[in-house]
């Protein structure tokens, strides 16, 4: 008697657990990944000119960043976003002036860095930072 032999059906590997693992990995990477890029700002300190005795041809402008979002330059207060300050910055860039920046002690670090960004965008590169001043 001839028996009909059916070929054994090939057992496929189930991909469902693999997809589960991929989902878990995706969740992990989505929740733990950060896309922030760390950068830096280079600032000169007050001691940066003590070692130089060479006569320089630039002038140094003292600026005080106040808690009221103003900049005091030579006794005159300029709002940070004012047009007059922009004009002054342009003049200082032409004169190759150096900035000596101090902030009132209550001004936040973020505000100080934003102001430095503002000044650098205007073209002022030589910014020296000094200790905070009590209002």
């Amino acid at each position, binding site marked *: 008697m001839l028996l009909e032999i059916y070929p054994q059906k090939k057992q496929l590997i189930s991909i469902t657990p693999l997809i589960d693992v991929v989902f878990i990995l995706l969740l992990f990477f989505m929740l733990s990944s950060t896309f922030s890029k760390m950068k830096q700002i280079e600032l000169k*300190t007050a001691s*940066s000119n003590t070692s130089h005795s060479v006569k320089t041809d630039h002038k140094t402008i003292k600026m005080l*960043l106040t808690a009221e979002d103003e900049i005091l330059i030579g006794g005159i207060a300029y709002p940070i976003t004012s047009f007059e300050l922009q004009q002054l910055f342009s003049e200082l860039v032409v004169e190759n002036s150096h900035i000596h920046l101090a902030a009132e*002690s209550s001004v936040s670090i973020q505000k100080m860095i934003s102001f430095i960004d503002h000044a650098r965008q205007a073209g002022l590169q030589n910014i020296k930072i000094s200790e905070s001043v009590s209002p």
Partner: protein
Amino acid sequence: MIVTNNNQYSKNKLDESMVPAINVIFLLLIFFMLAGHIEATNDQLKVSKSISHSDLKTESNELQILANGKIIFNSTLVSGNLVAALKKAGISKDSSLICAIHHELPASALDPVLKAANELGLKKLELMTELSH
């Protein structure tokens, strides 16, 4: 008469319709794996945002000032004199020092670092920032 197994047919159809979804999941996974980076976050230290594009010097000495005022130098808490701690670590006038300071702290929080920098004769100081878009 041909009898078809409707259940098997619909199951296969469902499996096939899931393939594009699984492809998208794989692509998302690859994106997050390659584009993102995993780092330890500290609520006590969120640096200021800036438009500066200068790359961070990773080989420099790192000084952290946390929101609670604690100062950490190269992963070690500085409890005493900052100048002494920096001198002990071999910081000299030509050394590079990166300062990561919590963005909400007042400017006066930076004073001890500036004083120390002046005492040590450091000519420049790098402030760590986060690129703002």
